């Protein structure tokens, strides 16, 4: 049969960021897909050679506007490991709370974009309206809605009052209760099921084979979550990752929907279990210059991110590298796209939650 190549992207109504897929079609079936990235490469990693290590945290945050807190946290934690700095416990708890809030707002943003991708614009608006409440909490507690600038090597720059923490938990629980109706729509609406169920199925074996991470892997039944390692105080919380077994687009949506409720519960647990020590130190003074290298892993909303830092005893780092979850999930996306209908390609691309800014840095 005659083959046709349809370029999809870098500008496409469904793509929030520039990604090119050259789709090789036989009639309406996709038989091959060739990805091209590199449209938003900004050279942020190379900046590490010209920006002092104390200031590079502000650059790292700008890798991505959605995971900005997690990037700042990952850099700070990795540098603290290199410099053997023990961070005050309260700072670690605050980081955990902000990190889970990042997950909530990232998933809400994605659910909106996903709804928009399968043509449910009303639902898109509901998700983004819910997300505004989370951004309000960020603005109250960090001073920023997207870029927070609250992490620093040695701790965090802002504290939260215990009453404020309790109020945040109340607000998030109300948000969760209000979101339950939206969640029910995602899980039960027949038009959504018709569009997503059975589409883009990634089996458990395939997910293993292509090293899928994050909700992509968990939707295929793989119990893979960096939070299970217990680092960053997650060992003090009761945590079990959300798993689905279907591995299709709907399962990936459902995993993210349920992770919102789970993150709200993790924040509630954190507020309950963190010492009531308002006014306790939230940072330690960091002196000297870093020497050595380290890896650091975090569970971002899209999956596992890995940071590599090499320091050479000067105020400029020798190397900074981030392996982002979207990069890890692109092979899975390509595997899913092959064999699907052309009309399903946008949904499959969206359900990996692609963040091209993170991937290209």
């Amino acid at each position: 049969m005659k083959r046709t190549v349809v370029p999809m992207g870098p500008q496409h109504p469904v793509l929030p960021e520039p990604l090119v897929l050259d789709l090789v079609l036989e009639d309406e079936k996709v038989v091959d897909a060739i990805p091209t990235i590199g449209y938003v490469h900004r050279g942020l990693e190379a900046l590490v050679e010209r920006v002092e290590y104390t200031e590079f945290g502000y650059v790292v945050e700008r890798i991505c506007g959605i995971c900005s807190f997690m990037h700042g946290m990952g850099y700070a934690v990795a540098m603290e490991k290199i410099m053997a700095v023990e961070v005050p416990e309260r700072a670690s708890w605050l980081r955990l709370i902000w990190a889970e809030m990042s997950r909530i707002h990232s998933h809400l943003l994605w659910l909106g974009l996903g709804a928009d991708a399968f043509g449910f614009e009303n639902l898109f608006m509901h998700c983004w309206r819910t997300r505004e409440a989370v951004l309000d909490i960020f603005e109250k507690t960090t001073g920023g809605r997207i870029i927070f600038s609250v992490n620093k090597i040695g701790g965090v720059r802002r504290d939260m009052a215990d009453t404020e923490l309790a109020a945040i938990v109340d607000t998030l629980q109300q948000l969760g209760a209000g979101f339950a109706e939206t969640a029910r729509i995602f899980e039960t609406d027949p038009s959504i099921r018709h569009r997503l169920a059975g589409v883009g199925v990634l089996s458990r074996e395939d997910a293993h084979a292509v090293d899928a991470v994050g909700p992509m892997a968990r939707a295929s039944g793989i119990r893979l979550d960096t939070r299970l390692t217990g680092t960053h105080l997650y060992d003090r919380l009761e945590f079990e990752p959300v798993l689905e077994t279907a591995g299709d687009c709907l399962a990936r949506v459902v995993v993210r929907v349920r992770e919102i409720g789970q993150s709200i519960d993790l924040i509630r647990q954190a507020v309950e279990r963190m010492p009531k020590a308002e006014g306790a130190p939230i940072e330690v003074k960091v002196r000297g210059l870093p020497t050595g290298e380290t890896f650091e892993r975090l569970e971002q909303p899209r999956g596992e991110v890995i940071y590599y830092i090499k320091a050479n005893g000067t105020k400029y780092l020798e190397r900074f590298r981030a392996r982002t979850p979207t990069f890890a999930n692109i092979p899975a996306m390509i595997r899913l796209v092959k064999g699907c209908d052309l009309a399903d390609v946008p949904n499959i691309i969206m359900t990996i939650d692609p963040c091209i800014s993170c991937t290209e840095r």
Partner: protein
Amino acid sequence: MANPFSLPMVGRSLRNLVSRPATRRYPGEARPHFAGTRGTIEFDVDTCVFCGLCVRRCPTVALACSREDRSFAIEQLRCIACGVCVDLCNKDSLHMSMETPRVQIHAGAAPGDPRPGHQEWHQAQPAAGGPPGPGDPAGGVAAAAT
């Protein structure tokens, strides 16, 4: 075909018909900022001792100061409002305003100015009593004792 009234979104949509909008008529109705919001850096030339600590630590090199000229400058278009300078300043000369001016590119500069977003202050010498520096709306002040 499914009964439309059994669809889970229908009830929500009907409620939306009578509920208040979630959006505002911006800019007529602007959302108030929360306490602690990081907006724009403000500078108080009266209290600055031109130590240069903020200049050295600014991640984007948005600040400049000269102890000899007793001048201070902010490039608002470079500033990322991280607040590092505000935290560092021992004299409380730098403050974080919650306001974010909408037309930032012409702050303190005439249209067509080659340095949009550039703000500059000059602290008058105690004995000189010279003319006020550009961008100093107070018309120059006596230098603080250092």
